[in-house]
């Protein structure tokens, strides 16, 4: 297998990545993939990716949201645009920043780990042995991880977005219940069917990218060559960040251009 470490943006590497993504998506969508062993891998992956970091991530998201809400509210008030502060917060924070931040957080926390794990399995020859034994490493080891990462990203995004929605209300109106109608109206305006579908699709793509790309590039590590592992992981992370950025830009372009 060609060593792709030095040439992260090599076309062949991307083609291989896309092919792997296709196989993995098909496998992830077929119910036969999920046997008890696969499910155990997926549960373990969700535990590592979402549960373990949940308190800290929620705290981080809450702090980040609070600061941003305060900045937007103050600036909007100063420019006499307080009416549009909530809409701005919902559009910027809930629809864009929190999903992006979650994807980046999970990519750093778990994407790197998954990529390294797969690269090491590849170097140690575990995956090759499995394949030789007639079991599909794609179905048994890789697809559960991809699904679990996608679910984790969706879960973290949902929870932190909910926190941000509550904080936006408190930050703008305090604990008064009388602004609920106004708040509801703006929420109704911002979260149209298209916006909700776009958010869900973006979450899914982020989740898939976070696991798929490190795994696909981790597979580029060569058996017995430990030095190929770090390069494969590095290439995977760079590609991952690139793809996350691309998804975000595409989603913005579709929404606003």
């Amino acid at each position: 297998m060609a060593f792709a470490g030095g040439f992260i943006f090599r076309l062949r590497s991307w083609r291989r990545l896309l092919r792997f993504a296709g196989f993995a998506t098909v496998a992830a969508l077929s119910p036969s993939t999920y046997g008890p062993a696969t499910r155990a891998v997926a549960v373990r992956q969700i535990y590592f990716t979402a549960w373990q970091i949940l308190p800290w991530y929620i705290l981080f998201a809450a702090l980040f949201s609070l600061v941003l809400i305060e900045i937007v509210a103050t600036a909007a008030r100063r420019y006499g645009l307080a009416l549009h502060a909530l809409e701005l917060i919902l559009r910027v924070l809930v629809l864009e920043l929190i999903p992006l931040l979650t994807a980046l957080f999970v990519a750093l926390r778990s994407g790197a780990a998954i990529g390294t794990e797969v690269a090491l399995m590849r170097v140690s020859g575990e995956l090759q042995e499995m394949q030789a034994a007639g079991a599909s490493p794609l179905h048994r080891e890789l697809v559960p991880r991809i699904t679990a990462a996608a679910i984790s990203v969706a879960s973290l995004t949902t929870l932190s977005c909910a926190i941000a929605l509550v904080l936006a209300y408190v930050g703008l109106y305090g604990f008064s219940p009388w602004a609920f109608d106004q708040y509801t109206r703006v929420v109704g305006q911002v979260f149209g069917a298209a916006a909700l579908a776009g958010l869900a699709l973006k979450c899914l793509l982020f989740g898939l990218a976070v696991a798929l790309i490190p795994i696909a590039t981790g597979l580029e590590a060569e058996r017995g060559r430990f030095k190929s592992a770090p390069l494969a992981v590095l290439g995977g992370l760079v590609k991952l960040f690139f793809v996350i950025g691309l998804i975000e830009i595409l989603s913005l372009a579709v929404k606003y251009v």
Partner: protein
Amino acid sequence: MSTEREPDVSPLPKDLGVKVGMLLALTLVVAAAFVLYVLFARGVFEQTQRVTLIADNAEGVRVGMDLTFSGFPIGRVRRITLREDGKVGIDIRVPLSEARWLRTTSIFTLELPLVGGARIRAYTSNLKDPPLEHLAERPVLRGDTAEEIPRMVASLRAVLANLDQITDTGSNLQESIKNARTVSERMAGRYGVLAGMLGGEEHARKVIASIDRANALLASLGGISLKLDSVLSKTDQRVFGQGGVVDETQKAATQANAILGQVRESLKQVDAILANAQEASENAKAASGNVRAAATDLAALRAEVEASLRKVAQLIDEINRKWPFERDTRIKLP
């Protein structure tokens, strides 16, 4: 999974499945609640009434924007269509709970402010009018700030030019203000409003002096009239009063009348005597032929009496001429 792999760094808890299940359940519940909330916020669970607003231009209007009444959002734009006649139909859904604010006489406006999005507003002057029917079509009045500005600037420029002209040095306004200041300064001076009206203290002083003189004149006239009054009253007393001229004259005239009456009586008696004498003389003539001389004497006496009678009549005439107050102007003569 091969045994060659190193064990996980962190040990796996026993209730792994429960924890992950809880997380997934929580996520699903939150997501479902949020979707329901958004559906509620978008009015999916509410029955709505449709109103179509007809505009010339849909600029600034977007799907999802509010229709406000008194600043409160009561409806939402659902659809914008370009109609066959080239006008724009803005389809608005108003929840039935808010539809009571819209009446048949309601007016709709579309405003494009400089900052912020367009606003569609409804105005209802009389809330007792019949309610707006379902699927009603109403024209919308359009007010565009950006379109208004050039027009406003043009008219403002004209106004400013006028203002400039008015406030220019030597302009009518400035002259007027100057005059007003002069007048008010004079008014604030010693002779006040009088000086302001007459245009100087000197004139005012003259006027005041004239008034003083007129006052003095009036005072002396008062004295004169008092004196005249007393003179008149005295005259009145002397002429018409008790024992006055008129009174005395009247008395004299009465006395003269009485005298004349007496004279008339005397003359009558004389006349009778003379008649008797004539009769006696004629008898005597018959008796004695020497009586003719006596008769001639009697005629002379009679002429004398007539002469004195004439004199009395003349006297009465004269008195009457001189004193016209005599009431009984008739003088009876034999």
